[in-house]
């Protein structure tokens, strides 16, 4: 299977994780066909290509399909060697993988959960999210990007923070990453947002807000979700 084979990406515009794959493909200069999935009505194609999790993103390269955004990022890095996303050194690679996982499990998932919670439950999750953000703040201090001078794997993994997090904070009436306590994170967010590949490749805030309201309406009329 050559790197010349057709590349397709099944994604959802409002998904924080499917966007990562687009950023990676664009940074590598890889042409791909984007297929927007209806998050409320999954296509038979998606269910066929990712029967295990039934989620986006799914990358299709020639005849082969793969799922899980961080797994896909590594595949992209190994298949198209220009503009490497992960560091070369095994120890640095392990660190990058560690932080990507940490941010996904302890910040992204928890912030989303806080958004979807109320009262005491929400307060608890908010506190955990802030604790996780504090650890990430320490990690980005003194660096332009998480990956150093150039944008890389870990920046892509954290990139949801520049568009999705502020919207979740606003819609959820909660603050996780405030400018006073998180100057380094805010500085990184600005750098990331200004990157030519990123700035033209973000969902409009209004679309995210609309999606969240629609989802919340659906869940309140069907609590089983």
């Amino acid at each position, binding site marked *: 299977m050559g790197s010349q084979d057709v590349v397709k990406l099944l994604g959802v515009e409002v998904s924080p994780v499917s966007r990562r794959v687009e950023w990676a493909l664009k940074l590598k200069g890889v042409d791909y066909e984007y297929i927007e999935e209806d998050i409320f009505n999954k296509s038979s194609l998606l269910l066929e290509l990712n029967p295990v999790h039934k989620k986006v993103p799914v990358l299709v390269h020639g005849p082969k399909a793969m799922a899980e955004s961080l797994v*896909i990022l590594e595949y992209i890095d190994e298949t198209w060697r220009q503009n490497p996303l992960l560091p070369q050194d095994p120890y640095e690679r392990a660190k990058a993988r560690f932080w990507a*996982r940490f941010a996904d499990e302890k910040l992204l998932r928890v912030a989303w959960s806080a958004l979807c919670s109320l009262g005491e439950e929400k307060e608890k999750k908010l506190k955990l999210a802030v604790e996780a953000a504090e650890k990430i703040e320490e990690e980005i201090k003194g660096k332009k990007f998480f990956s150093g001078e150039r944008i890389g794997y870990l920046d892509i993994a954290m990139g949801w923070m520049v568009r999705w997090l502020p919207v979740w904070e606003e819609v959820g009436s909660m603050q996780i990453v405030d400018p006073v306590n998180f100057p380094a994170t805010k500085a990184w967010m600005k750098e990331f947002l200004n990157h030519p590949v990123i700035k033209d490749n973000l969902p409009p805030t209004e679309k995210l807000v609309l999606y969240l309201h629609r989802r919340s309406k659906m869940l309140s009329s069907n609590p089983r979700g």
Partner: protein
Amino acid sequence: MSNEVVLLDFWASMFGMRIRIALAEKGVKYEHREEDLRNKSDLLLKMNPIHKKIPVLIHNGKPVCESLIIVEYIDEVWKDKCPLLPSDPYQRAQARFWADFVDKKVYEVFKGVWLMWAKKGEEHEAAKKEFFEIFKILEGELGDKPYFGGETFGFVDISFITFYSWFHAYETFGKFSIEAECPKIIAWVKRCMQKESVAKTLPDQKKILEYAVQLRKRFGLE
């Protein structure tokens, strides 16, 4: 260059076992340090300040954390012997996907049964159903291959085989038989247990059961 390798571990941890297997496969000499999880060492807290958990691999003084990340690290550093991941990027993506599945889903359903096995009726049945749903998916992925990795024992096999040491404990308390529901998984287990690295690493299932009983008493789950 010195090659000092230290593993902070706990004998009953399925995550720690993964590292022991990987190091054994590669023939790496290392110092094994057993942690008391109720009284964690300063070294552990210093080397893994974020999660404060084992396993931690300390290589020439530098810590690597999270078991699957450690296994990949081991594979990349000691790359001349016994590859644990395939060389083809797509095969690697599949291996990572399934190891991630084991980490998330197998662990989740183990936890589900752990919490439910003292309960009866509907809740117990629901936990048992989910448990076997996940195992059946894995059985499907294994198919007719000798190992998840294909012809050779690899990353996904390492990620899953360590749960075997806890099977007897879960079967005892959950009152079910994994072999009855998923014979292919047990056949795969027996194949893996023929490997020295696996057989020498996995603790005796009866010891795990004893430990599990103690744990449940301690957490008031009995």
